[in-house]
């Protein structure tokens, strides 16, 4: 009997031992698996790295519970679970850790067996009830009209409160990710540190009106707002992780880890199935942020906030020439004789004068003292007319940014020259938009190409570089009754020019400044005075400068078709030829958002002349 008992005890203990070891094996195994789950990696902002397997983009020791947490998601998971279990911690410390990492807590709670209880964090709850979050909105300011480089721009989030009975977007909270620079640094240090990511980036909250004023009013950029299709649980998960990121610094890079990227890395925590960052094609570009969210069908119909300049132009279109002349005089200090016009007209004139005066003062950087007296007088005069504004607001543009083509472009072409040479070309453009690309979703009259490369092969199998533009930009905002806009452009890189017996390579840089007229949604023409510096085979490797003109006209035939006539005529004062020029006739047919066919006829003259016929199929991605 004793024997039996002993046997039983041994059996039970070995069974328990077996059970325990197999269970602990299973647990270790499953923890490893959990640590490699994408949601855990996203919570820790881990990215595949070179030296170790993983490295977190968070640059803050306090964000990791394990000393190896920055590079080891497994260690961080084990440390997190240990802390939530209260190992070596007082109950107060345990609760503090849980409340520091509520998103990790809520996720792990459903992943592993535990007796952790539920979240009980008064400070967090206070914060959540202050936000009173209902939905999250992605905010996308578009580019400046006269600065194509702002196409890269910025994106931010807005947390909309539950009480939607009133228009209160302005006092909702904006979630902004930005670098925190050292104010003592000089501009060179500033640029360098920004480039290498020496300035840390962090999330901050601020009232949305500050951001509206910054983009709409000061920088005059239209804003698009996309409410995200998140349910209440998803909104909560995002906010809980935002809480974890309070006071956390990230290495800030201009490109890789910029605001758009960090916002996506936050938003993808809404649920386990989202992976917004790994498929991000060109991190720098906010429109790709919009596209990434569109791919997951997370965007509601956008809402449009016209920029200051957009509103001003829209108001001016509702006034006659005579009324605008009165506005000019009133702006300059003349009293408005209110008995001359109807009250609606008086109201419109005074409002326009106030807006225009403010716009000019911002544009020209006038001091407050020079305009504040007059603009206050205009407001007082306006307040005496008992009417609301007679102006109709600007209409929302037909196409919003998420409808625009993707920012990178690949092309295959067939080229035929007048000397009967056939070539097959492959071209790639890193970013972003040229004036013949379909304009839906882009601001009109702005071109920016970065790294636009083309190679070719002929029937004999000879390959060569046709073109390599590092940058090619053109901004042609049109003149109108109220804006005196200047156009400008610049180009730098390598291309080929007509030479005796061949097409010779040329390295060059060119810049121009001028004017544009017309309507970018119909026919627009521009003319720039231009200067260039050339070298390479075409100048026998001497430096030769050129002065002349870059001009053209673009006709938007309909939404899918555009035609352009472009010319570049340059006088070469100290060269073996007097001048060189190039004429292009282009026609672009957009098959859909991301496919287009382009035909080109080019006439080129330098040492010799050449006519080239070219058909290209473009894919945007």
């Amino acid at each position, binding site marked *: 009997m004793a024997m039996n008992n002993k046997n039983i005890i041994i059996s039970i203990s070995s069974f328990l031992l077996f059970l325990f070891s197999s269970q602990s094996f299973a647990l270790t195994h499953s923890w490893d698996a959990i640590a490699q789950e994408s949601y855990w990696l996203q919570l820790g902002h881990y990215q595949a790295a070179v030296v170790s397997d993983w490295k977190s983009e968070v640059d803050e020791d306090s964000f990791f519970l394990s000393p190896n947490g920055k590079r080891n998601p497994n260690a961080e998971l084990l440390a997190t679970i240990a802390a939530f279990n209260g190992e070596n911690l007082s109950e107060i410390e345990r609760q503090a850790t849980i409340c520091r990492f509520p998103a990790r807590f809520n996720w792990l709670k459903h992943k592993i067996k535990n007796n952790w209880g539920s979240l009980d964090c008064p400070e967090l709850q206070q914060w959540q009830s202050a936000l009173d979050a209902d939905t999250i909105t992605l905010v996308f300011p578009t580019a400046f009209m006269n600065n194509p480089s702002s196409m890269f721009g910025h994106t931010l989030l807005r947390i909309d409160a539950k009480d939607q009975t009133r228009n*209160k977007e302005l006092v909702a909270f904006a979630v902004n990710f930005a670098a925190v620079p050292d104010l003592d640094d000089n501009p060179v240090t500033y640029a360098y540190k920004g480039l290498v990511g020496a300035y840390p980036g962090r999330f901050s909250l601020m009232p949305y009106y500050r951001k509206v004023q910054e983009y709409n009013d000061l920088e005059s950029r239209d804003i698009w707002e996309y409410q995200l299709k998140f349910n209440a649980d998803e909104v909560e998960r995002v906010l809980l992780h935002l809480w974890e990121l309070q006071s956390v610094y990230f290495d800030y890079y201009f490109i890789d880890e910029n605001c758009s990227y960090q916002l996506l890395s936050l938003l993808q925590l809404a649920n386990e199935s989202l992976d917004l960052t790994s498929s991000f094609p060109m991190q720098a570009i906010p429109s790709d942020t919009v596209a990434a969210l569109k791919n997951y069908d997370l965007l509601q119909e956008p809402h449009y906030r016209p920029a200051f300049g957009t509103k001003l132009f829209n108001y001016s279109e509702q006034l006659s020439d005579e009324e605008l002349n009165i506005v000019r005089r009133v702006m300059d200090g003349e009293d408005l004789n209110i008995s001359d016009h109807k009250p609606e007209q008086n109201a419109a004139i005074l409002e326009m004068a106030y807006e225009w005066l403010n716009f000019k003062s911002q544009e020209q950087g006038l001091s407050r003292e020079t305009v504040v007296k007059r603009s206050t007088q205009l407001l007082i005069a306006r307040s005496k007319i008992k009417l609301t504004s007679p102006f109709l607001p600007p209409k929302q543009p037909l196409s919003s940014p998420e409808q625009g083509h993707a920012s990178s472009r690949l092309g295959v072409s067939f080229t035929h020259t007048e000397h009967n040479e056939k070539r097959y070309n492959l071209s790639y453009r890193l970013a972003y938009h040229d004036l013949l690309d379909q304009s839906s979703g882009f601001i009109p009259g702005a071109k920016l190409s970065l790294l636009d490369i083309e190679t070719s092969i002929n029937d004999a199998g000879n390959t060569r570089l046709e073109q390599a533009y590092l940058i090619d930009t053109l901004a042609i905002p049109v003149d109108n009754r109220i804006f005196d806009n200047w156009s400008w452009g610049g180009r730098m890189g390598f291309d080929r020019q007509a030479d005796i017996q061949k097409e010779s390579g040329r390295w060059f840089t060119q810049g121009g400044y001028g004017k544009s007229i017309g309507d970018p949604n119909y026919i627009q023409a521009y003319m720039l005075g231009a200067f260039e510096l050339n070298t390479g085979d075409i100048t026998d490797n001497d430096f030769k400068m050129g002065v002349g003109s870059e001009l053209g006209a673009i006709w938007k035939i309909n939404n899918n078709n555009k035609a352009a006539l472009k010319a570049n005529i340059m006088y070469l004062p100290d060269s073996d030829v007097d001048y060189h020029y190039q004429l292009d006739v282009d026609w672009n047919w957009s098959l859909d958002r991301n496919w287009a066919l382009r035909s080109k006829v080019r006439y080129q003259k330098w040492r010799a002349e050449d006519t080239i016929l070219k058909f290209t199929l473009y894919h945007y991605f």
Partner: protein
Amino acid sequence: MKKLIAVALFVLPLSNVMAAPNEGLGFRGNSHGGFQLFNITTDGTMSVSTTSGPRGHRGGGRARLVLFIEGNMDNLARDISRSGGETLSTLTAVWGVPVEDETAFNELVQANFSEVFTSENVTSEEVLDNLNHIVSTDVHLAVYTLS
């Protein structure tokens, strides 16, 4: 490579840096103070939570209005001169004026523009006091007077 190329064109979006607050009209763009805060509830100045009903004001309402006026002075003056607009509509919502009385409120403050913006150097506190005084003397809207 792409980092090097694009960097020259990049505008680094900067955190808002604490600036000395400017009072008065015509300071559009001189952004005020940095709310780089997660502890919004502990200082109580920037709460989006709503105070419901005109008579339900608690102490936080006034501070919130002063802050809103300070950050929106120019747009508010513009909207008041026209008795309408998003900034004025937001003010009345934060104030606690219900939708049905919004037009009356807007018309009242428009009619008294010069009493609200007594000079171009008026402070946000003064603007709120002036608005509150005008509201308190109106037969219909006096119920929305802030304490």
